[in-house]
């Protein structure tokens, strides 16, 4: 069993959990993920590791409650345990040798962007973070990003906090002004990563997207995490999750992510009803 040592609500729908997982904590590096199940009959949920404490043997994950599975996970309290946790899976983000980088995070993707920014900062890189949210209430990890960035730009779609607009505007501006990054890391919704890739493409700056497709096993066995990169089929769980954003077929990936939308809606409905019953 994997105990929840700490549970924090970062905003209305985003939860951070620190879990006991010594085997994973010993090995985990920035960019890797775990797969966990809240209960014995639960769905397997892939989540990127947000923080690792090898000494205490813990890993932290940050997730948004969006579907039935994350709802079940989010309902767990501090001190309780979850049924399963396996990892670290996937390859760590390649950060060696980079001097000047931009880390772009969108929404809950910021939780995954942060460890990358942090790792780069620790290696002495000059880090520009651009983090975007829909609105002020949803802003998370602002302080944490500032602590590891030379420059930090915050955007909200509605302008309630930081710059108004999405993350591509300030990125484009910096590039236009002549900023040259060794690499740009994009972590967030597929459509955001797609536009980050389009923004950097004319400048031929190496751009890395962290892909988060539907997964089951996370070990290369089911193939449901497959995506097309440069015309080739790749399994995100074993070949990624980081890929060259200029080569990823984002439109296809967006389509694949919607494979089970109808089911998800039903499951959410069912779960909400269950919760309602419990409350009554």
């Amino acid at each position, binding site marked *: 069993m994997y105990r929840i040592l700490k549970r924090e609500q970062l905003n209305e729908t985003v939860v951070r959990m620190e879990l006991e997982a010594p*085997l994973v904590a010993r090995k985990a590096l920035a960019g890797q993920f775990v797969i966990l199940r809240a209960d014995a009959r639960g769905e397997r949920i892939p989540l990127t590791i947000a923080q690792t404490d090898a000494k205490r043997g813990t890993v932290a994950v940050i997730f948004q409650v969006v579907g*039935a599975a994350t709802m079940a996970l989010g309902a767990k309290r501090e001190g309780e345990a979850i049924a399963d946790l396996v990892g670290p899976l996937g390859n760590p983000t390649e950060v060696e040798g980079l001097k000047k980088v931009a880390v772009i995070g969108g929404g809950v993707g910021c939780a995954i962007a942060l460890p990358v920014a942090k790792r780069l900062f620790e290696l002495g890189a000059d880090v520009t973070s651009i983090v975007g949210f829909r609105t002020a209430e949803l802003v998370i990890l602002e302080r944490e990003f500032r602590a590891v960035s030379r420059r930090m730009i915050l955007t909200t779609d509605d302008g309630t906090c930081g710059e108004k607009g999405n993350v591509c505007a300030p990125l484009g501006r910096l590039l236009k002004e002549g900023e040259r990054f060794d690499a740009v890391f994009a972590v967030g919704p597929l459509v955001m990563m797609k536009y980050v890739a389009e923004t950097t493409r004319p400048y031929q700056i190496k751009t890395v997207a962290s892909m988060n497709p539907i997964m089951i*096993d996370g*070990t*290369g*066995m089911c193939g449901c995490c497959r995506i097309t990169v440069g015309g080739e089929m790749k399994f995100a769980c074993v070949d990624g999750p980081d890929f060259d954003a200029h080569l990823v077929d984002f439109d296809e990936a967006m389509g694949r992510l919607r494979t089970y939308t109808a089911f998800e809606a039903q499951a959410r409905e069912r779960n909400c009803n269950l919760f309602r019953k419990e409350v009554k």
Partner: protein
Amino acid sequence: MPNFNMTEKRHTMSVQDPSERRSNFREVVLGYDDEAAISEAKRCIQCKTRSCTRGCPVGVKIPEFLSLVAEGKFEEAYKVIEQDSALPAVCGRVCPQETQCEGKCTRGIKGEPVGIGYLERFVADRHMASGRAEERPRSNGHKVAVVGSGPAGLSCAGDLAKRGYEVTIFEALHLAGGVLVYGIPEFRLPKAIVRREVEALADLGVRIVTNAVVGKSLTVGELLGEYGFEAVFLGTGAGLPRFMNIPGENAKGVFSANEYLTRINLMKAYEEDAATPIFPARRAVVVGGGNVAMDAARCARRMGAEVTVVYRRSEAELPARREEVVHAREEGIIFRFLANPTEILTDGEGNVTGVKCVEMELGEPDASGRRRPVPKAGSAFELEADCVIMALGTSPNPLIGRSTAGLTVKPHGEIFADEGGQTSLEGVFAGGDAVTGSATVILAMGAGKRAAEAIDAYISSRRS
């Protein structure tokens, strides 16, 4: 002179009616009762050729166990099978008997062969029902790690534990059993049977660690080093699904059989309130002709789809177990032989709408000795479908190879190992699909047993 039963036909096993079973996941074949088993066992004339045993990949002493069944000594019969087979309840159900023991049976020359598979299953189920637990052997103080809990790993672990080794199995998924739990469906191999096999190992003192991916969570080097295991057995199977490399393969509604089956079998997507989604296929096309293709087709059928199996060779070459093909047909599955997909058709939103195929004909024999299918010019045709399941076989998982320095791996990912499973690294053994590429449960089990012997010899030689 014992009273042999000379009827030419074997005792049939009762099966669930096709019209009923095509909408449930309960076991299809229902088994013999004592009387039928005894009568069927008497059909064995104890001939001196013992060709059945020679046809068995692990050499089960079939005439001996059959004669014990004929005498009603079921537990004794079990003991005979157990000497050579670690998973009789499983093998009785999933072995391709028609090409192995039963294919060689003397009674089969004139009439039907003895129902050896049915009787193996009967004896094993009878043993399980009796609830007899094995005695836990005294520990010899030596530790062995087994990676993977499929047929190879389970049989290797069982044999080592019986010899007194302290065995720990590492399994990547949250449940032990490997392909027996994620691949083979409930209606062919009830999961309760797999669970009991795993529990039997636990009774022998085997430790099972789930959620541990060797190659990621731990490495082979660490197992041999800081964890203090004296030998490691790699039974990691062949889990990497193959695709066809044709347009449309990443459309919504295209799945590897591994994904489709894992959702159904491991994640129980067929249960009413399952947490795991399954694609609501109306018309499914399954590509392939092996057992996995049959399993996927029959699962899709049970989930409510009209199913067509597309296979590039002819019916005679179908590699699937014959009984599964018969059952699939009875359940209303349509077969399109000598056909091969060339493109998956989609609508503007990336949903599957059909499969474009070509007809094939059989040409010259290829390296495997089977006639190679070649496309017929101008024979393109389309099948309507909203779901395509690829059951084209699997390659060994590359994780271990990539993370274990010094382990020699063949070009397609198979781990290089000798007869006893010795790999290129000292103390590291391997067997099953990880070494051979996708094969059968019985072969993997046999490899696990041979490796157990080799590991025992290896550790004993180090001791002295």
